[in-house]
């Protein structure tokens, strides 16, 4: 009988696993995909919100494509329990699926601030396509949108809200915006930039209640004036979708603890993406990296291993990049490691800032800010990633870079980082172009 691979979750990790299995096994195995939603890319929902792309653009695998990949798809179904002793998965409609191996890639869900009214009308999350549709239907030109939470997700939809010509206020309970992406100095520059672009910001804002008031929402705070909003969007964090694994025997810590092949403690059960707690490339410790690139890499490694390859994974690199009002903001690796040696340079006149973090002569993290049209300030973000990814020892270049934080290019080239990168592939072979599998 053909091997049956069961993929639970149709997001980035799950779909990359499906395509990689087919890339390596062609049509020899059975693939069953269980996905609560029709597969789409969460990364591009902000562009749908801003109406720069049509809704049809967000989908990553059409039913025809899934059929072409010979995937038996259970779309609209959720997994409810896993019996790892019997290799059986149960779905919410009672369907039982037996598997030879299984991937858990059920992702995350948004969490709202625990205040009265947070689940009331006019208060939205922006995480799923369905939620995006809800927000798209509500935002009006001149209306007042209040974003609760000033993290990465909130920042990805900031441009879209402005493109819809709504007034925007961003609230953050922490003392600074983007607390998990940039440091206080960087946050100060970004806040100044956003205020200049007529985005109101309130940091240290402790929301206490949201009340309905003549079709609008009144937000009350522990301190400071109330706000009246037409639309409230909660971007106050996410939690991994793992409750359904209770009693399954799969070991869960912050996420499902996986080895360097992305296997859980149950050898034929893998985990990938937001639910996986795997190796961090820079620290060597385990971490949950709930970001698109990690979901992609995890999914591909799992797919190759399910297809019988023996692919070890070096670990995922934390990285985020977002542009707000034509200001680029990016951080990667150990950008906030207080034990690393840090060198920073701010150029507020150019809205530029960067910080490089070191262990010895190796770059372990970086944070950069700069205007998107100022190629001097942000065009080397990929090289910074390459230096962190390779861990290339920079020798005398370190001293040079600590004095010339914008001189990355010469250091990158002269240190032979390209030579170190060229043999690197995720799966030990050249990548296949999308759509060229089968």
């Amino acid at each position, binding site marked *: 009988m053909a091997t049956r691979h069961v993929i639970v979750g149709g997001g*980035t990790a799950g779909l990359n696993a499906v395509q990689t299995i087919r890339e390596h096994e062609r049509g020899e195995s059975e693939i069953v995909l269980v996905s609560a939603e029709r597969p789409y*890319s*969460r*990364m*591009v929902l902000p*562009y749908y919100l801003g109406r*720069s*792309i049509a809704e049809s*653009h*967000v989908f*990553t695998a059409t039913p025809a494509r899934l059929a072409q990949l010979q995937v038996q798809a259970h779309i609209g179904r959720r997994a409810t329990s896993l019996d790892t002793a019997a290799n059986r998965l149960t779905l919410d409609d009672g369907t039982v699926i037996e598997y030879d191996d299984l991937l858990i890639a059920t992702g995350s869900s948004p969490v709202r601030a625990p205040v009265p009214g947070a689940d009331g009308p006019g208060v939205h999350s922006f995480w799923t396509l369905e939620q995006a549709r809800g927000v798209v239907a509500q935002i009006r030109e001149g209306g007042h949108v209040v974003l609760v939470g000033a993290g990465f997700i909130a920042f990805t939809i900031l441009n879209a809200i402005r493109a819809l010509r709504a007034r925007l206020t961003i609230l953050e309970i922490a003392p600074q915006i983007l607390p998990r992406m940039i440091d206080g100095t960087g946050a100060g520059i970004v806040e100044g930039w956003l205020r200049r672009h007529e985005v109101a910001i309130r940091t240290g804002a402790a929301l206490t209640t949201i009340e309905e008031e003549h079709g609008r929402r009144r937000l009350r705070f522990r301190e400071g004036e109330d706000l009246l909003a037409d639309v409230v969007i909660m971007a106050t964090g996410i939690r991994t979708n793992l409750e359904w694994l209770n009693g399954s025997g799969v070991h869960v810590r912050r996420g499902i603890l996986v080895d360097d092949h992305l296997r859980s403690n149950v050898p034929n059960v893998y985990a990938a993406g937001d639910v996986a707690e795997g190796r961090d490339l820079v620290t060597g410790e385990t971490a949950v990296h709930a970001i*698109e*690139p990690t979901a*992609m*890499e995890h999914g*591909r490694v799992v797919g190759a291993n399910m297809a019988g390859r023996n692919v070890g994974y070096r670990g995922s690199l934390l*990285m985020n*990049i*977002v*542009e707000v009002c*034509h200001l*680029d903001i990016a951080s*990667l690796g150990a950008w906030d490691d207080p034990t690393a040696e840090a060198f920073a340079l701010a150029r507020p006149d150019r809205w530029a800032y960067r910080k490089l973090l070191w262990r010895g002569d190796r770059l372990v993290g970086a944070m950069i800010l700069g205007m*998107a049209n100022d*190629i001097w300030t942000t*065009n*080397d*973000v*990929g*090289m*910074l*990633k*390459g230096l962190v990814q*390779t861990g290339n020892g920079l020798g*005398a*270049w370190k*001293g*040079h870079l600590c*004095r010339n934080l914008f001189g*990355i*290019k*010469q250091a*990158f*080239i*002269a*240190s*032979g980082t*390209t*030579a170190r*990168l*060229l043999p*690197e*592939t*995720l799966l030990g072979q*050249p*990548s296949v*172009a*999308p*759509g*060229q599998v089968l």
Partner: protein
Amino acid sequence: MKLLRIIPERCTGCMRCELACSYVQTGAFQPARSVIRVSPFETHTSFAPYTCTQCAEGWCMTACPVDAITISPVGAKVVLDDQCVGCKLCTIACPYGTIFYNPQTQKAFKCNLCDGDPACAKACPTFAIEYVEAEPADWLEAFAAGRSSRHLEAASAGAEAR
């Protein structure tokens, strides 16, 4: 496949490759939009053009959340403009730093080998850029390292003196 072989010893820093690249790629002479970029070494006495190696992994291609980067008939990783939403993920995922974002078009852009007729190679008056059958290689390390050591020593001596 054929790719761009760089022979930095021949580069004079004339920037014609950047002008030609930006003109063919964007229709305007604007080095800031060139995807081959000449780096100076030893305080602008040596120069080396640097561009995409069309690497085996294709970090930009695999990172793209909407499959907007593919492999062209000549083997180049290329951006499909009608698919790209401008999310910039490729620009941080590419560890070579050779894919960029164009604020005017709001799309990513990179070397596409000019569909098999690279303008940079044709424009180079000293044959420092050749379009030939070759394996991807680090064409610049030895050149750049050799031309950096004295500069680095001088800079670090200066820093210590301060």
